């Protein structure tokens, strides 16, 4: 006779089976997320669940910030005021010449038939907190898709490039700093126009100018600015300063370490630049396709 335990003893599948099932599910999700980026829609759905919690979690910080702002001492306000006045005096000189320079620049560009760069609309945002994921260098800012922030936009502060918007929520967005290990920024050496790609250095808070030939003309204290050829960053924004160069004859590439110009870990206020609208369309691949077509036909015939 079949022995069946009474129903009140049944506890479902064994814990090990359950662990196996959920571990497989988690691994599947991680692979989809890390390798193929298919999990974004699922993330958006789960993020909707987490969203009220996120909002609620931000409330005490906002309250604290408001209270702190209220009790700012007069001395510090006065000091800041004096500092700002001094800064304005310094900037005034530049400001007076900037109109003339802009006009001259526009004329020169027209002469060169260069594409005229329009000043980009930008959004001022405040950094709320550092992302809790200890494996990446990200910050969360207080503007999201409702304020017109889109994934891929460049983020700068008053002295240089801070990073790039990588994920957008309705009222928040996530900015990956240029020092993140996965972040690359196309740069140019200001002194001689040498183009390169700069890689984030991870936890060290530095940047690496990788895959630059060992004999490339890069010196210590060279300033690196965005090259602008990616269409994401406007050209000429300071990114980093070369701090150390190691040239080893055994390797074909020099090991160049740089320090970010912008206060990637310090500032509260940042500027999110909108994408440049006047990017020329990507070249169509008609020529190359035409070249490949006979081969494809042949391959099809073989099938």
């Amino acid at each position: 006779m079949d022995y069946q335990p009474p129903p009140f003893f049944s506890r479902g599948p064994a814990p090990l089976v359950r662990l196996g099932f959920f571990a497989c599910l988690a691994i599947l999700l991680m692979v989809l997320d890390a390798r193929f980026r298919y999990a974004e829609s699922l993330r958006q759905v789960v993020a909707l669940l987490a969203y009220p919690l996120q909002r609620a979690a931000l409330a005490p910080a906002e309250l604290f910030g408001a209270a702190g702002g209220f009790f700012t001492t007069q001395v510090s306000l006065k000091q800041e005021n004096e500092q700002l006045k001094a800064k304005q005096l310094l900037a005034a000189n530049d400001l007076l010449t900037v109109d003339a320079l802009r006009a001259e620049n526009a004329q020169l560009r027209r002469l060169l038939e260069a594409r005229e760069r329009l000043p980009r609309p930008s959004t001022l945002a405040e950094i709320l907190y550092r992302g809790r994921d200890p494996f990446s260098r990200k910050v969360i800012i207080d503007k999201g898709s409702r304020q017109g922030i889109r994934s891929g936009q460049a983020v700068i502060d008053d002295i240089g490039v801070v990073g790039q918007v990588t994920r957008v929520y309705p009222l928040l967005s996530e900015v990956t700093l240029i020092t993140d290990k996965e972040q690359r920024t196309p740069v140019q050496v200001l002194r001689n126009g040498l183009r390169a790609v700069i890689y984030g250095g991870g936890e060290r808070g530095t940047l690496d100018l990788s895959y630059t030939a060992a004999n490339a003309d890069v010196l210590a204290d060279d300033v690196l600015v965005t090259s602008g050829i990616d269409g994401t960053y406007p050209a000429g924004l300071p990114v980093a300063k070369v701090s150390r160069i190691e040239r080893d004859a055994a390797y074909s590439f020099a090991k160049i370490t740089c320090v970010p110009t912008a206060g990637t870990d310090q500032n509260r206020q940042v500027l999110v630049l909108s994408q440049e609208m006047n990017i020329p369309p990507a070249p169509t691949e008609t020529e190359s396709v035409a070249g490949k077509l006979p081969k494809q036909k042949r391959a099809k015939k073989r099938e």
Partner: protein
Amino acid sequence: MAFYEQQQRILSPAKAGYMALTLVLALLFNLLPWRNVVGLPDMVALVLTFWCVHQPRKIGIGIAWFVGLVMDAGNGALLGQHAFAYAFLAFAAVSLHRRILWFSAWRQAAHVLVLLLASQLLMLAVRLVAGAAFPGLTYFAGSFVAAALWPTASFLLLLPQRRPAGMDENRSI
């Protein structure tokens, strides 16, 4: 040494709503905008472990997995990373719950420390495979803080169950 190191009390049954509320509060704690605090305890992991040890029939691997997914989406981490670690944590806690409850609070904390460290190691392994950089040994400090909070947390989380079921003037406890 006595079999039970602590005085055992007969507790009233845990309410599912209360368990859910503690989990939501722990999630709220984790999503607070912390600024580079070293040794920040993972409250969700701690509360999950607590309930898996005390109420293994009401909470388990599935719920832990889902809570982990919410953590991933809220934190912007790799989707499935916390889900994986929490599912393992819940499995270990459910398997060990009979053993852990024999010990006094601080010895329980030692067990919990091992579980939390193991789940953090899992997350670290996953992220290193996915290509992230090693965040430094301070990454593990959170588990030590969380384990140190275990006696306090278990006292607080058991408080509603210690309440007498009916308000009776003649009750002795």
